[in-house]
């Protein structure tokens, strides 16, 4: 059943993105930024984790989950190390996403040529 919800919720978040792209003057960068901030805010309100439980990859794959993961990392560190933990903890949890992107992009630049 999670599969069905993964499809629907994931698709749904993309629909929100598409509507923003088509109906407003926002550029893709603006829309992604908005979505990532929304993920952060929703996690702050305690709403993103339940969404992940419910929709699995439908909530962890869209870019909104970045915001969620960043807040999680910050809050987890803050629990153990006080307010300074907010800064030290932010990148604890998202390292997979950002580092994977950096490393793979670098190798891609070595192997591929832009095709225009």
């Amino acid at each position, binding site marked *: 059943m999670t599969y069905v919800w993964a499809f629907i919720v994931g698709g749904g978040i993309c629909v929100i993105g598409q509507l923003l792209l088509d109906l407003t003057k926002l550029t893709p960068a603006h829309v992604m930024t908005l979505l*990532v901030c929304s993920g952060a805010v929703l996690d702050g309100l305690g709403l993103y984790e339940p969404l992940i439980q419910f929709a699995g990859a*439908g909530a*962890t794959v869209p870019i909104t*989950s970045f915001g969620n993961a960043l807040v999680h990392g910050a*809050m987890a560190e803050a629990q153990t190390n006080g307010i300074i933990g907010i800064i030290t903890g932010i990148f604890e949890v998202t390292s997979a996403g950002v580092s994977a992107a950096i490393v793979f992009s670098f190798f891609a630049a070595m192997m591929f040529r832009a095709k225009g």
Partner: protein
Amino acid sequence: MATMVKQGVKAKAEFKKMARRHVPKRPVAANVIKAFLVGGAICLFGQFLNQIFITYFGFTQKSAGNPTVAVLIFLATLLTGLGVYDRLGQWAGAGSAVPVTGFANAMAAAAIEHRSEGFVLGVGGQMFKVAGPVIVYGTVAAFVVALISQLLKLL
């Protein structure tokens, strides 16, 4: 001397209205459907990957997200390098841009494109050209949200 075409404030407003009539409306309904299908499919694929990592590699529900995202990013980078992702993007719009694969495409596209300026200044210096805002605002938003949330706890 004045131009033959009027450029006053009123003329500009009228022109904008007239131009609006000629600019074709974006096919919003079709775009939304395509975005839903592709975005949903990518997330569905992610869900499969999640299951594989949990069942065969001993990850938990919580920790399976990391390798799943890593695999998706790898595939998106590969498709970008092969020159396929941009075509998918034109068709799927937000459906391929919103999932983390879109983030990977933005990074990989910039890295590949700027190789002609060298590996340090080109690939290194320009890699975050398109995806930078996401990282900056994600971090800033997380900081603010966590700060507010901690301060509220203290009250």
